[in-house]
C-alpha cells in the first residue's frame, strides 16, 4: 500500500510568516506591474478585431506585418499562434476611435484584402480560420459582466459559508480566496496571458476550487474542535492540516493531471485557461494552509467566539470551560486522545 504523508506532523502554522513573505513577494511586484501596464485583455473586452490565418508554409510575422503596413493598417499585433504556419492578427479599438461603430468589421475586411494582395488569392495562399469583430459597446458590457460575476461569486460563497460554518470560518475562507485572486492576477500578469471571458471563467472556477480546499480543512477543524477539547486552536489547525494532507496530495495530483494534459494538448485557445487552472491548484492549496488557517487563528483571537469551541480556543490548554459543551459526536474519545497526544 502506498501512503503519502500519512500521520504527518508538520508544524505548518509555525512557518506562516515565511509564507506571508513568499506570497507578498509574488503579489506585490505582480500588482505593481499590473497597475503600470494593465492586463492583456482579449478583444472580447476591449472591442476590436481578431483574425486567425493559416498559410500553407510558414511565412513569418514580418511578412504579414509588411502586408498590413502596405495596406495602411497600423497598430495591429501579429503573433504566431500554435502551429508555425498559423498567425493571429489583433487590432484593438483605441479609446479615441471607440465612437466609430462598425469599424471593427471593416478592419476585418481590410485585413483580408491586404493579405490577398500580398500573399496571393485566398484559398490557396492563405486561409482565414477565425474572425472575431467586437464592437466597443459589447466589450464594455462584458467587462461589467465579468466584474459582476466575480463580485457575486464572493457574496454567494460568503453567504453559503456563513450558513454552513460559523462566520469566523467564512471570513477566513473568503479572505484566503481573495488572496488567491490577487496571486492569480499576478500570475496572469507575469506570463502576460490574454484575459478572455474563458480566463475569467477559470478564475471563478479557481475560486470554487480553492474554497473547496479550504472547506475540507475547516470541516476537519470543526470536527477536531469537538473531539479534542483540551488543545488550543494552533494545535488543532496543525492536526487538521496534517490529517487532510494525503487527501490534498491525491486530489491535487488528479486535478493537475487533467489541467497539465489540457495545457500541453488542448490547443492554443484553451491554453491560458488551462494555465490559470494549473496555477489555481498551487495557490488554492497554499492559501488554504497558510492564509485561511492562520487567519482563522487571528480572527479567533480578535473576536473570541461565545460558544464552547471558540471560547477556549486560544486559552491555555487544560482550562475547564465554564459551560460543559454537549457530548462530542462520534468517535471513541480514548483512542482519539492517545492520537492527539502525539
Amino acid at each position, binding site marked *: 500500500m502506498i501512503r503519502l504523508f500519512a500521520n504527518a506532523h508538520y508544524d505548518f502554522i509555525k512557518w506562516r510568516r515565511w509564507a506571508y513573505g513568499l506570497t507578498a513577494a509574488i503579489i506585490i511586484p505582480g500588482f505593481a506591474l499590473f497597475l503600470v501596464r494593465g492586463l492583456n485583455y482579449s478583444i472580447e473586452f476591449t472591442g476590436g478585431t481578431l483574425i486567425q490565418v493559416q498559410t500553407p508554409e510558414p511565412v513569418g510575422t514580418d511578412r504579414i506585418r509588411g502586408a498590413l503596413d502596405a495596406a495602411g493598417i497600423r497598430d495591429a499585433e501579429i503573433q504566431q499562434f500554435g502551429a508555425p504556419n498559423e498567425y493571429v492578427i489583433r487590432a484593438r479599438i483605441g479609446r479615441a476611435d471607440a465612437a466609430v461603430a462598425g469599424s471593427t468589421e471593416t478592419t476585418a475586411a481590410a485585413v483580408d484584402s491586404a493579405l490577398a494582395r500580398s500573399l496571393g488569392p485566398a484559398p490557396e495562399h492563405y486561409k482565414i480560420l477565425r474572425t472575431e469583430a467586437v464592437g466597443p459597446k459589447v466589450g464594455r458590457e462584458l467587462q461589467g459582466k465579468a466584474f459582476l460575476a466575480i463580485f457575486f461569486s464572493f457574496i454567494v460563497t460568503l453567504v453559503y459559508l456563513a450558513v454552513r460554518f460559523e462566520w469566523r470560518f467564512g471570513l477566513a475562507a473568503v479572505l484566503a480566496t481573495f488572496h488567491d485572486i490577487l496571486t492569480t492576477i499576478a500570475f496572469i500578469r507575469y506570463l502576460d496571458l490574454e484575459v478572455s*471571458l*474563458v480566463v475569467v471563467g477559470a478564475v471563478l*472556477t479557481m475560486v470554487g*476550487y480553492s474554497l473547496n480546499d479550504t*472547506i475540507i480543512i475547516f470541516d476537519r477543524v470543526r470536527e477536531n474542535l469537538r473531539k479534542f477539547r483540551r488543545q488550543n486552536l494552533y494545535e488543532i489547525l496543525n492536526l487538521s492540516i496534517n490529517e487532510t494532507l494525503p487527501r490534498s496530495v*491525491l486530489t491535487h495530483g488528479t486535478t493537475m493531471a487533467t489541467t497539465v*494534459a489540457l495545457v500541453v494538448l488542448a*490547443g492554443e485557445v484553451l491554453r491560458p485557461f488551462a494555465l490559470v487552472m494549473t496555477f489555481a491548484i498551487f495557490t488554492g492549496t497554499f492559501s488554504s494552509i497558510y492564509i485561511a488557517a492562520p487567519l482563522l487563528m487571528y480572527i479567533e483571537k480578535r473576536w473570541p467566539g461565545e460558544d464552547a469551541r471558540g471560547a477556549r480556543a486560544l486559552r491555555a490548554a487544560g482550562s475547564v470551560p465554564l459551560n460543559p459543551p454537549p457530548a462530542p459526536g462520534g468517535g471513541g474519545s480514548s483512542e482519539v486522545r492517545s492520537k492527539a497526544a502525539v
Partner: protein
Amino acid sequence: MRTIRSRLIAIGGLLALAVWQLIPTDVTQRVRDATTGRMKDTTIRRVPINLGLDLQGGIHLALEVDQSKGPVPDCATAIQLAEKVVRTRIDEFGTSEPVVQIQGRCRLIVELAGEKDPARAKGIIQRTAFLEFRITDMKNLFRDALPEIDKALRRAGVRAPGQGAAAASVTQLFGADTGKAKGKTAKGKAAAKDTTELNAPDPLSSLLFQGQLPGEYLVPEEQVPVAESLLARPDVQRLIPRGIELRWGTEVLSRAGRSYRTLYAVEDRPIITGEYLQDAKALRDPLTNQSVVNFVLSRGGGRIFERETGRHVTDYMAIILDGRVQGQPPVIKSQIGQRGQIELGAKPLQDAQDLALVLKAGALPAPLTIIEERTIGPSLGRDSIRDGIRAGIVGVALVVLIMVTYYRLSGVLAVAALALYVVFTLAGLAGFGFTLTLPGLAGLVLSVGIAVDANVLIFERIREELQHGKLVRTAVDEGFLHAMSAIIDSNVSTALTAFILYLVGTGPVQGFAITLIIGIAASMITAIFVVRTFYMIWLDRRPDMATLSV
C-alpha cells in the same frame, strides 16, 4: 441483499436512461444542395449532443438597430421587426437550424452553424425588407396552364415522384371550390390521356392540392424540394402564364396528419408596396371579439390603394414580405383608402400581432448594425475537438493510473464509477439539450480530475478509520459517513460559482459552466452512491475480510 439489489436496479436504470439519451438518432437537417443551391432536407444519424459554434464552425452575429443616423425611440419594437424579417429569410442561409433570437431588449442574435461565407450571410440579414400587396391569381390562369406544364415535363422525362395515389391533377383536398375547377381538372386529365404515357401521373400537378381560395395551392411538406426544383426549370418558367408569378407562403398547415406548405400564384404587379405604409396595429375588436390589424397609408398611398382596391373588390390580396406570402391572403371587401383593416376572424391575437409586425417591417425597415461577429472555420472546430479529446484521454488515463496505483482495488472501483460518471455527464448534456462548447470540453476534462475528489476523501477516511483499529465493515461505513459533509460543502461551493458564471456568461462560457454543474451532480451520484454499492457487494461476498484493499 435486498438493499444491494435495489441499489443495482437504480444504477442500472440510470445507466439505461443515460445510454438511451446517447443513442445516435436520425436528425433532419435542411442543408443547401451543392449543385442546385436549393435547400433540401437530409437525414443524418448522430449522437444527439449539440455542438457549439466554436466546435462545428459557423457564424455568430449580434445585431442592434442602427442609431447612427438619429436615435430610434423604440428599439424593442424595431428589433422585433428585424427578427421577423430575418426569420422569413431563414431558408436563404446555407445552414441547418439557424438560431435567430432576441437577446435582452434590443439585440438580435443570429447563429449560423456551418455557414462559411460571412459576407453573404450578413448581406441576407442586413438587406432592407420589402413589403408588397399583390392580388392572387383570381382567374386560375396558373391552374389552366398546369396540363401544358405537365406535358412539357413528361416530354423532358420527368416522372411524378412518390406513389401514384395522387394521380389526378390539381386535387381537391378540402373545402369548397367552384365547379369550374372540377371541370378544368377533368379537362386536364383528358389532356394528359392524349399523351403517349397514359398512366403516368402528372409530374407537377400531382404535387399540388387546390387550397381554399383561387391561386392558393398546398404542397406536402416532404414534396416541397421536388416542387421547388420543378418550378425552377426554365421550360416550366416559360409556361407559367404571363402576368403570374409563384410565391411560397410562410405557413405550414396540417391536414389529416400531414403538413403542407402553401404556394400562391399571384399577379406579377403589386397593387401597393411597403413604402406607402405608415403604421399598423393589432387589436381585438371588442364587439365581435375578433382579431384585426388596422393599418394606415400615406396620403399618396391612400389614393393608389383606393383606385386599386376599387378594381379588386372580392379579390384576395396576398401580403408578401421579401418574396414570401405572410399568412392567408385576406379578401378585399370594399374599396379602401388611407385606413384599412385586415380581419383575422377567430385567430388568436398573436397572429394579428405577427401580421402587424410584418406590415411595420415593410413600412419602417430598421437598419441593423453588426456589433459583434465571430466566424469560426469548420477545420478549426474539428481541430479543437480532436485536441480536446486527446487531452481528455491523456488526462483521464493519468487519473486512472494515480487512483489504481494508490488505492489498488478500491481505486478500481472508483475508476469504474468514473466511467459511469462520464456517461452520465454526456447524457445530461444530451438529455437537457445543452450545447457542448470548447470551454465546455475543457470543463469536462477538468471535472474528471475533480470528480475523484469525493472518492479520495472517502478512501482516506476509511484508511484513517482502519488505522484506528476499526473493523473493515465499520471503517467503510464511518468513512462514507464522515466524509459526507466535506463532500457536500465543497461541491456546493463549486456549483454555486459555476451557476453565477452561467448567469453572467455568454455562449461558450455558459457551456463551461453547464458541463461543470452537470459534472458535479453526476460525480455526487457516482462517487457516493455507486462506489458505496460496489463496496456493499464486495463486503457481502467476503464477509470475513480482515484487510481492505484501499
